[in-house]
Each structure stands twice: as structure tokens, then as C-alpha cells.
């Protein structure tokens, strides 16, 4: 239960346009700008060690600065968020979240989201006319269905794991659905997604059938990677899901490369209508990894069409983000490399969607990359083998209260975008989809022995020449052979 005047956790800010968002802090807080920048952290145990500059005057005293993104400073074109007044809700973030003592320097820095929007939205509307709504009914139900699919699927994974049908490392996405749905549902088919080991829901959102994903998890030959990849390595060339990587930070350069290809295709190969965008998903722990910075640099340097999406769930297995990072505000690292850095409440799918829309269209236009930090939380442990003992139950409870699915459901019902019955029907349908997928996977065959040596090379002549002088792959007994390839 959210107490009025005290948003539940550390990084969130009360939304100015609360009528249009899923969380509803009381009106008094919205109008008072000073209040908006007051520290919200009192209850948050994890922030105790941080000196918080609660100087509320910061945001008021500094004049709104033009886009801090140095590349865009040169142009007078609209910035990432200038066109969208709704995003004013981010404005108070920068000054009081700065840990440096001077508020002026902090607000100069650098999230594009702060101080950019010139309009002052003093009195957010409380009316619920259709024009105020962020999404249409169809979109709302689509988002709901996608999030429910993600949740139901992951819960089924947990069940199957404990029954022994799945094995190895399985990392579940419960609680973070808003990020996946919010971003991926805005993509086109040729846009790419690169993820980490926590990739089941990214695959589902991108369109990989639940049957294919769960068969892959069971290790069956009907899986999306024929059982050869597993939980951490979901690939689908049809859906442009470029993996599934086990090493953190490994997917970021790969995503940057896919964005590079998109730009190359358009500019060098002259395919003018080619403008696919790549999304790279990764976590808070990755933001301390060298490859992340290398790619921020190169993506900004070459203005690649990529969005770097940080799913900051505050924990890297058992390592708290705050214990591991010198400056925990990840969005700030974007402007250091010359790209906008944005922070968004990752438990609110509509907010995520708005930010995503801007970032993706910015990339598609050719204006370059964006770093989006989504503050989110995983309800389960790091993996199904993680006893999850280090996280404070109070913290978990706080975030559980902000479950993105319940929040969207409430929004839909409040705004009369759908009825209870429709939502129940969606849930029921999803349950059937998931159960059907499990049945399908159960009945699917295991990979045959001959599959062991397949797909090592695109050109199987790479196995070389056998003792008889012919290519090994041409020997009919090749795949029945011993390990001596």
C-alpha cells in the first residue's frame, strides 16, 4: 500500500501527469514543485549510505538548459523529449538525485530529460478524456496480454524446473515485464533485440512462439534453437532476436554491430528505406563492465541506431548495485559519451512505452543512440538456483505492490479501456497457450544423435578432410562416429 506523500522506493518520482500514469500520488504533491524534488528515500534501506542532496531549489533556480547532448547542442532541432510535454515528469529528477553538492552542476549534466521541456505543466489534468489517454484500447489489451504471457510463462518455467523437466541455469523475468513489453511492442519485424541470459520474455515479446521457447528450455528438438542453445541462448533469425548471451556485457557489442549493419545497409549499400533499430537489454551489473562503455562510445561516435536499455533491478545476483557502483545513476553515463541518458520507472509500462517511443524514433531518424535506465525489480531470485537470501523482504514487498501487471489492469479498468471479463478472458487464453506449449514440449522428441555434430559450421566442410581423402561431412557415417571428429 503506497502511503501518500511517500512514493515507495528510491528512484521513483511522483508523476506530474499522474492521471495519465499508473501510479497516483495525491494532487498536493504534484503541484508543489519543491516537494517533487524532496528526497523520497526515507524508507529505502538501500539508500542509507548515500548522501542525498535534497536541495529542492536546484531545479527551480537553474534556467532550463538546451539539450545537454553535445552533438545536438549544435543544432536547434528538437531534442529527445522536447516534443512531448507529457514527459515533464522526469524534470525533477536530475537536481536532487545528484550526489554532488552543487546543484547547478548537477542539473547541467545531463539527462536530456531534465530541463529540456520548456513548458511548465503546473496543473496536471485529472480528467480522463480520451485525448489524454496514452494508449488506445487495442494497445492496452495488447500490452496486457503480452505482460500476462511473460508472467504466466515464467511461472510455468519455475514449476517445470522444480519438477525436473528443465535444468541448468534458468533466469526468470518476473516483475520486469513492463520493460520488455514497453519496448519490444513498439518494434517492427526487422528491428533487432539483443538480450542477456534473462531472455525468455524478450523472445516472447518479439514474437517467438511460446511453444518454441519452452521446447528449447526442455531441450527438445522442436525448440527455437533445436535444443542446442537452452535458456540462456535464445536465437531467432525470423524474429531478429540475436541472442541470448550468458556473459554480461557480451550482447552489447553484438547489438552495436547490428545497429552498425543497419546504418551500413542504408548508407553504403544504399538501401534507403532500411532503417531498422536495435535494442540492447542488459542489467545494472553490466554497467560496470568495460564493453558497455566501449560501445556507448562507438555508438555515439558513429551515431548508430541503437537504444541501450538498462534493466536496473538493483541486484547482480547478490551484489547490490549500490555496493558495486561508484555512481549508481546509470542514466548519467549516457551524456558522458554524448548521448541522452534517461531514467524511467520500469514498473510502469506506459511510462516505459513513452520513453521507448521517443528513443526508438530518435534512433530511426538517424539521431543516434540513447541510454535508457529502467528502474525495475525481479520478484524472484537471480536464477532458480538462487536462494535469494540477501534481499530485504520489505524491499521485495514494496516492489511487489508495484507489480506492473496489476497496475496496468487497474489502469485499464479505471479508464474503462476494458472490462474485467475481457481481462479475465485474456488471462484464461494465456493460460491455455502456456499449457498447450508445455504439452507440445513434453511430447516433442529429444534431439537425435546425429544432431550433435550439426550446425557447428555453416559450411560443414569445416570439419575437414577425413582419412579417406574426402570431406568428413560427406561420409554418411560421420554423425554416428565417435568424439574424434
Amino acid at each position: 500500500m503506497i502511503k501518500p506523500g511517500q512514493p515507495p522506493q528510491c528512484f521513483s518520482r511522483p508523476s506530474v501527469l499522474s492521471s495519465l500514469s499508473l501510479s497516483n500520488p495525491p494532487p498536493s504533491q504534484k503541484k508543489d514543485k519543491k516537494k517533487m524534488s524532496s528526497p523520497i528515500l526515507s524508507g529505502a534501506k538501500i539508500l542509507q549510505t548515500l548522501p542525498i542532496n535534497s536541495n529542492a531549489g536546484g531545479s527551480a533556480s537553474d534556467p532550463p538548459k538546451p539539450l545537454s547532448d553535445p552533438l545536438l547542442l549544435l543544432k536547434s532541432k528538437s531534442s529527445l523529449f522536447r516534443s512531448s510535454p507529457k514527459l515533464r515528469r522526469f524534470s525533477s529528477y536530475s537536481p536532487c538525485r545528484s550526489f554532488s553538492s552543487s546543484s547547478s552542476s548537477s542539473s547541467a549534466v545531463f539527462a536530456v530529460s531534465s530541463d529540456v521541456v520548456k513548458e511548465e505543466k503546473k496543473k496536471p489534468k485529472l480528467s480522463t478524456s480520451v485525448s489524454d489517454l496514452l494508449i488506445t484500447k487495442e494497445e492496452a489489451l495488447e500490452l496486457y496480454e503480452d505482460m500476462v504471457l511473460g508472467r504466466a510463462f515464467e511461472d510455468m518455467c519455475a514449476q517445470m524446473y522444480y519438477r525436473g523437466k528443465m535444468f541448468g541455469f534458468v533466469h526468470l523475468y518476473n516483475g520486469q515485464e513492463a520493460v520488455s513489453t514497453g519496448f519490444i511492442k513498439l518494434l517492427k519485424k526487422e528491428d533487432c533485440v539483443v538480450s542477456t541470459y534473462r531472455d525468455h520474455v524478450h523472445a516472447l515479446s518479439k514474437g517467438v512462439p511460446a511453444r518454441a521457447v519452452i521446447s528449447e528450455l526442455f531441450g527438445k528438438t522442436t525448440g527455437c534453437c533445436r535444443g542446442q542453445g537452452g535458456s540462456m541462448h535464445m536465437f531467432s533469425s525470423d524474429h531478429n532476436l540475436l541472442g541470448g548471451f550468458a556473459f554480461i556485457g557480451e550482447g552489447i557489442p553484438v547489438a552495436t554491430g547490428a545497429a552498425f549493419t543497419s546504418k551500413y545497409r542504408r548508407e553504403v549499400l544504399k538501401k534507403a528505406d532500411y532503417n531498422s533499430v536495435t535494442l540492447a537489454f542488459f542489467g545494472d551489473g553490466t554497467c560496470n563492465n568495460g564493453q558497455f562503455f566501449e560501445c556507448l562510445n562507438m555508438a555515439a561516435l558513429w551515431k548508430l541506431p541503437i537504444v541501450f536499455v538498462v534493466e536496473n533491478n538493483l541486484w547482480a545476483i547478490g551484489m547490490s548495485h549500490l555496493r558495486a557502483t561508484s555512481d549508481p545513476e546509470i542514466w548519467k553515463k549516457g551524456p558522458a559519451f554524448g548521448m541522452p541518458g534517461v531514467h524511467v520507472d520500469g514498473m510502469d509500462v506506459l511510462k516505459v512505452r513513452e520513453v521507448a517511443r521517443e528513443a526508438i524514433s530518435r534512433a530511426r531518424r538517424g539521431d543516434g543512440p540513447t541510454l535508457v535506465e529502467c528502474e525495475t525489480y525481479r520478484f524472484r531470485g537471480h536464477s532458480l538456483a538462487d536462494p535469494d537470501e540477501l534481499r530485504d523482504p520489505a524491499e521485495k514487498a514494496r516492489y511487489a505492490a508495484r507489480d506492473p501487471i496489476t497496475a496496468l489492469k487497474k489502469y485499464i479498468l479505471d479508464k474503462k479501456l476494458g472490462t474485467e471479463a475481457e481481462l479475465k478472458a485474456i488471462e484464461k487464453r494465456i493460460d491455455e497457450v502456456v499449457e498447450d506449449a508445455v504439452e507440445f514440449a513434453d511430447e516433442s522428441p529429444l534431439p537425435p544423435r546425429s544432431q550433435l555434430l550439426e550446425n557447428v559450421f555453416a559450411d560443414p566442410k569445416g570439419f575437414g578432410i577425413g582419412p579417406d581423402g574426402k570431406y568428413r561431412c560427406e561420409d554418411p557415417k560421420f554423425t554416428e562416429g565417435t568424439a574424434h571428429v
Partner: protein
Amino acid sequence: MSGIVRNKISAFSVQSLQRVGPYALSLRGYSSGAKEMTVRDALNSALDEEMSADPKVFLMGEEVGEYQGAYKVSKGLLEKYGPDRVIDTPVTEAGFAGIGVGAAFYGLKPIVEFMTFNFSMQAIDHIINSAAKSNYMSAGQISVPIVFRGPNGAAAGVAAQHSQCYAAWYGSCPGLKVLAPYLADDARGLLKAVIRDPDPVVFLENELLYSESFPVSSEVLDSSFCLRIGKAKIEKEGTDVTITAYSKMVGHALKAAETLSKEGINAEVINLHSIRPLDRQTINASVRKTNRLVTVEEGFPQHGVGAEICASIVEQSFNYLDAPAERIAGADVPMPYAANLERMALPQVEDIVRATKRACYRSEPRAATA
């Protein structure tokens, strides 16, 4: 240093001709005599031709553009193809190797140059985990037509962190193809073949070989010239002992073979070309003919290429061996800096001669083994 190899098979005479530069390919029709080409020019011409043939091919690496290549291998390419296709990267191996892999995932054909393969250790995660394994992990959906190339092995006086040979490390990884050329036509033919190959390839060049000239026939200069990946080449036929080598050591082996022939030992020298897949068939056939084996490599001895060849012989041709196989490798120490120590740490022609005589039971005292 003498860079001219007298190849007994070829009948070319070495003339003091103009070196064939990368843009002299149009001259190929005009002379049927032997031209000479340095390995550097051979690589340059291969890159040039493949980039002009397929617009999806691009080159990326440190100093490949404006500096014309750290070792001038990519000379002239920036001028010809522009900065969109010849890309100078920041000093970030992990980052740009990964970007290359991502570009290959999504449809381009990158050539990623490492200034030396020692620096590839910073990117080895991408070479192995994202490139080599991806076709398998995705069950064939995502192939990675990427080439990682650069100088490998010891140069002169560059000490421990710049002198390691990576053939054995990359050669053990499934999903990769690993090649190491020696002659100019190896360099040209293999590089063209690997750029066209749909799989990830590690192409190990050698810095000291870049300036060496070798005769090349007009066939080699043709733009469709390609060598087969996975096939070793018998540089010199012989009857008494088989010497296998790759890269710079082929030159040493051939010189050793010359010395030995004066002492009545007729050695067969095999230029491996391909570390992975290893051409076990050629090696085994040769050992079955000569009954003795000496493997030569520059890298560290334990778990090296020679170890794999010896194991292959034991498995497939044990009964044909008349003597234990001899393995010559670099010393089991990080490369020292002092010139005399460096010479001791690398296989020299005398070491090969000595080992071959031992294999032929012409008793020679063993050199120090680490």
C-alpha cells in the same frame, strides 16, 4: 634476410622484377613469367579484390584506415573504399570485435584486424563465445561470416606480451576455422577463401613474413584464385622423414631440409595451411610413407599444434612409425627480450636439423628441453 624460397617444385627462375603492387593486377595478362610478391602485397590484393567484389565486406581495426594499416597491409584501401568501409576504431578490442560479430549476425561480412593476436585476448570472448559458438547455439539460424586477422607469433625483440602464438588456443575451439599462411600465394589464396567463407575464421599472419617476397604465378594473381580451406600442402616431397610446420616455421623447415639433404636425409616438408580443420589425412599419408615425424611450431609446447599432430599419428598411423615423433616448439617460457635469449626461445634451423637426425637415429645430443 633472404626472403626468396627456392621452391623445388616450381620451375620459375627468380628474376629481379618489379614487385607486384596491389593495383598491378591489370598487368597479370602481360607476363607469364614469375612475378614476385611480398606477403603484404598479397594480403592487400586479396583484401582489395574481395572488397570490390562484395559490398558487404568491410574492414575494421586499429589504424587500418588513415595509417594505412599498422603493418601497411591495408594500404590504399581507405582511399579506394572510403571511411564507411575501412573503419578506424578506437582502441577497444572487445568492443569492436563484438561489433564485428554483431554485424556478421545481421548480414554483413566484416574483416576485423587485430594489431597483433596478443590483443585478441581482450576480445577472445567474442571470438569464441559470440562468433564460434553462435551457429551451433542458434541451430544454424545465425551464421557468422567474419574473419579475424592479424599478425601472430613472435616478431623481433617485442618481448613477452607481444610474442605469443595463438594457433593452439584457437585451434582447439569447435566452430572456428584457423588458418596460417606462409607463402605469398598461400596468403592471397587463403585470405580470399576465408573472406568468402560463411563461418568465423581466425587468420594468423606473421609480422616477419610481411616483407618476404615469393614468386607468384599468373594463376595466383587471378581474381578468382582461392585455396581450399582444410588442405595442407606438401612444399617439398621426400622419403625419409616428415616435417610439419606452419607460418614462419615452414621457411625454417625448408632450410633445414636443404641442410639435411646434403647429409643424405630426404625430408618431406608439409605446410599445414590450416590448423583447424587439421589436414590429418595428408599428414598421416605422409608419415605412412616416410615412417618418421617431426613437428615444428613457434608456440608453447604444452597442448600445442604439434601435440595434436602427434596424437593424431599415434591414433591413426602408430604401426607405421619407426621412431618416436619429435616435437619442436618454442621454449616453455614467456618470450624474453634479450636478442640472444629470444633466439634460444624460438626454434632455429639447427634445432630442426638436430631433431630430424634424432628421428632418423643419427644420434645427436638432445638440446635443452624445458
